[in-house]
C-alpha cells in the first residue's frame, strides 16, 4: 500500500455526486397556450374535455379564494391554499376512474373537487367542526392526512389490498383499479414516504406516487430537501419516475393517466413529480415574505395553470365569451354556496366525541360521557 502519487482522484472515482442531466419537463401545453408534442405522452381528449378542465381549474381556484377570505374574516381557523397547483390536482384527479382510490394530504382541494366531494366538507375541517366530514368510500377519496407523508403508506397498503382482491390486470376496464398517493416535496424527506417506495417496489403495488413539488416546504426550499431531482429517486427503488410540468393540466392528465393504467395492468408503481409552485403562503398562518423573493413569484405567475388553458381555448375558438362568463357565474354561485354553508354550519356537540373513539364502546368512555353530560346539565338555568 502506498500513499505516494495521485493515481486515483477520489473526487471522481465513484462518478458524479448527483446527476445534473435533468431532462425537460413533460409538457403538452406551453404557458402561452400552444399545444406541443412529446415523444412518449399524448393528450388524447377533445376540446370539450379541455373546456371541462378549464371549468374545474377556475372553480377550484374560486374555492381557494373564498376559503382564504373566510379565514381572513375569522370563519375558518386556518386554510391551506392550493393557489398555483390547480393543474397538478385537476389533471391527476380527472385521470382517476371511479374505482381508483386517492389518498390526499391536506391541500388536495382540487382532487377533492374532481372526486365529487362537496368543498363545504373541506371547510368543516378547517373551521374546526370535524377532522374530516366525508365518507372515503363515496368518491374513493381518503380523509385529509396532516402528518406529513403518513398517507403514502396507507395508499401503498390499500394498493396491496387491491392486489389481494384480484382487481389488477384482469383486462376489464371497469374493474381494474389503482391507487394514487399525494404528497409534497417536503414529504420526500420523511421515512414513511421512503418506506412506501420500498413496499410498493417490492410488492409491485398498483400505485402512483404523485409528488407536487411546489418548491417550498413552508419556508424551506427544495434544495434543502433533496440534492437529486425528486423523480430520479424512483430508480433507486426499482420503478420509473417522471417529471411533468405541474402547471400544464394536459400533460399532468396524460402522464397520470398512463401511470394509473400501468398500475391497473399490474406493471407496478410510478413516481410522478409534478413541477409546480406554491403561489400563496403555506397556510393562512404563514408569511412567505420572510423567506422568498418576489422575483420568483413573478416568474411563476407567467406560467399560470389557468391562463394557458384559456389562451388555448380562445386561440382555437373552442370557447366564446358566453362560455367564460358562464364559468364565472358558476364560480360566483359556488362561492356563495361555500360562504352561506360555512356560516350556517353548526358546531358539533361535545357529547358526540365520546361515541366516535371506538367501534365497540367502552364502559369507561360511556361513563365519561355520562359524567360530562351531568356536569353540563348542572349549569342549566344558571344563565337563564
Amino acid at each position: 500500500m502506498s500513499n505516494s502519487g495521485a493515481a486515483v482522484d477520489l473526487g471522481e472515482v465513484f462518478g458524479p455526486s448527483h446527476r445534473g442531466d435533468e431532462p425537460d419537463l413533460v409538457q403538452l401545453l406551453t404557458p402561452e397556450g400552444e399545444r406541443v408534442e412529446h415523444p412518449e405522452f399524448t393528450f388524447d381528449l377533445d376540446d370539450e374535455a379541455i373546456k371541462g378542465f378549464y371549468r374545474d381549474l377556475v372553480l377550484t381556484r374560486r374555492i381557494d379564494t373564498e376559503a382564504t377570505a373566510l379565514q381572513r374574516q375569522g370563519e375558518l381557523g386556518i386554510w391551506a391554499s392550493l393557489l398555483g397547483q390547480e393543474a397538478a390536482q385537476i389533471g391527476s384527479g380527472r385521470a382517476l376512474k371511479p374505482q381508483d382510490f386517492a389518498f390526499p394530504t391536506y391541500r388536495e382541494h382540487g382532487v377533492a373537487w374532481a372526486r365529487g366531494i362537496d368543498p363545504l366538507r373541506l371547510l368543516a375541517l378547517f373551521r374546526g367542526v370535524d377532522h374530516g366530514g366525508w365518507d372515503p368510500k363515496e368518491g374513493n377519496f381518503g380523509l385529509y392526512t396532516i402528518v406529513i407523508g403518513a398517507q403514502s403508506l396507507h395508499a401503498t397498503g390499500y394498493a396491496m389490498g387491491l392486489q389481494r382482491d384480484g382487481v389488477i390486470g384482469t383486462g376489464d376496464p371497469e374493474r381494474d383499479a389503482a391507487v394514487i398517493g399525494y404528497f409534497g416535496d417536503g414529504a420526500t424527506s420523511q421515512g414513511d414516504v421512503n418506506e412506501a417506495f420500498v413496499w410498493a417496489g417490492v410488492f409491485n403495488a398498483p400505485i402512483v406516487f404523485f409528488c407536487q413539488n411546489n418548491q417550498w416546504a413552508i419556508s424551506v426550499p427544495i434544495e434543502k430537501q433533496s440534492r437529486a431531482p425528486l423523480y430520479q429517486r424512483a430508480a433507486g427503488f426499482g420503478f420509473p419516475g417522471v417529471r411533468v410540468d405541474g402547471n400544464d393540466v394536459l400533460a399532468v392528465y396524460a402522464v397520470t393517466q398512463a401511470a394509473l393504467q400501468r398500475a391497473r395492468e399490474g406493471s407496478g408503481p410510478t413516481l410522478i413529480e409534478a413541477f409546480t409552485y406554491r403561489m400563496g403562503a403555506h397556510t393562512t398562518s404563514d408569511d412567505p415574505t420572510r423567506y422568498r423573493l418576489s422575483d420568483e413569484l413573478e416568474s411563476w405567475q407567467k406560467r399560470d395553470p389557468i391562463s394557458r388553458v384559456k389562451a388555448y381555448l380562445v386561440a382555437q375558438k373552442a370557447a366564446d365569451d358566453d362560455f367564460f362568463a358562464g364559468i364565472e357565474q358558476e364560480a360566483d354561485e359556488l362561492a356563495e354556496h361555500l360562504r352561506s354553508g360555512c356560516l350556517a354550519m353548526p358546531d358539533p356537540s361535545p357529547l358526540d366525541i365520546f361515541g366516535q373513539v371506538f367501534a365497540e364502546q367502552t364502559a369507561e368512555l360511556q361513563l365519561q360521557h355520562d359524567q360530562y353530560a351531568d356536569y353540563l346539565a348542572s349549569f342549566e338555568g344558571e344563565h337563564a
Partner: protein
Amino acid sequence: MTAITIAKGLTMGLRAAMEADPKVLIMGEDVGKLGGVFRVTDGLQKDFGEDRVIDTPLAESGILGTAVGLAMRGYRPVCEIQFDGFVFPAYDQIVSQVAKIHFRSRGRVPMPIVIRIPFGGGIGAVEHHSESPEAYFAHTAGLKVVACSNPVDAYWMIQQAIASDDPIVFLEPKRRYWEKGELDEDAEPDPLHVSRVVRPGTDVTVLAYGPMVKTALQASAAAEGEGKSLEVIDLRTLSPLDVDPIYESVRRTGRAVVVHEAPVNLGLGSEIAARVTENCFYSLEAPVLRVGGFDTPYPPSRIEEEYLPDLDRVLDAVDRTLDY
C-alpha cells in the same frame, strides 16, 4: 384437553382466525418461512400463502402504515412487531393514524388491526429486547391494550382481538412463551376485556398481567405458607381497564399491590392506584403499593433479575401493606 404452550396457543389461535375469515392477514418481519423469531406464526405461510402471511421489508412504520391501508380496503391485518423495543419506529403510525382514524372519520372507517408485541424481560437479551411499553399505548385514546398470561388465554384472546373492529395492542409475555397449560377448545372463553381472579384470597389483592401473573401466583403460594392469603387478579385488559373486579376485591381485602415489569412512574400501577383510591377510599386499610421496574432504562441482562419484580419483591410489598 390438550397441553400447549403460550406460543402454541397463539399459533393455534392465529390459524383458527385465518380459517374463520379470509380477510385476516399476518404481516411482519420473518413471519413467513421462518415462522417468526419466536415461531408463533410457524407453518402459517405454508398453509395460507404469501398473500396472507406477508414477510415485510424491515421497517416497522411501513408495517403499520400499510396495515392501515389494508384495513381501509376491508382486511384485518395482524402485525407482528419482532420485539417490544422495535415498536417505536411504528409509534407515529400507531398513535397518529391507527388510533385516530375511526375518530377522524366519525366512525365511518374502522381499524381492525392487531399489533402483536412480545414484551418484557427475563430472556437474557441485548438492549431493546426486554421492554414493557404498554403505558404508552394504554395512554393513547383510540387503542385497546390487552396482555395474555397463559396458553388458554393466548388461544382465545388472539382470536377475539382479531375479531374486534377496534385496533388492539396485543402483548405477549415472551419469557413465558414456553409455559404449558391445558386447553379445552370446546370451552366458552371469557370476553376479551375482562379481568379475572386467578387465585382467591382475603388479605391483600395483588394485581398483575402478562409475565407477572406467574410471579404473583408464586408469591401467593409462598405467602400462604406464612399464613397470608393473597387474592391474585390477572388484569388481561389494560385499556380499557375492567375495574369492577378490582374494586370488588379491594373492598374485601382493603389492600392492593400492583405488579408490573414496566417502571412504576406513570405506569399502569399509577392509574390503578388512583382509581382504587377514588372508588374504594373507605375500604382501604393502606395505600395502594406498586412493584415494578426502576426509572432506569432496562439494564444489561446480567443484572436484569435485580430490575424485574420477583417473588420476594412482591412479598416485600405485601408485608409493607399489611404492616401499614
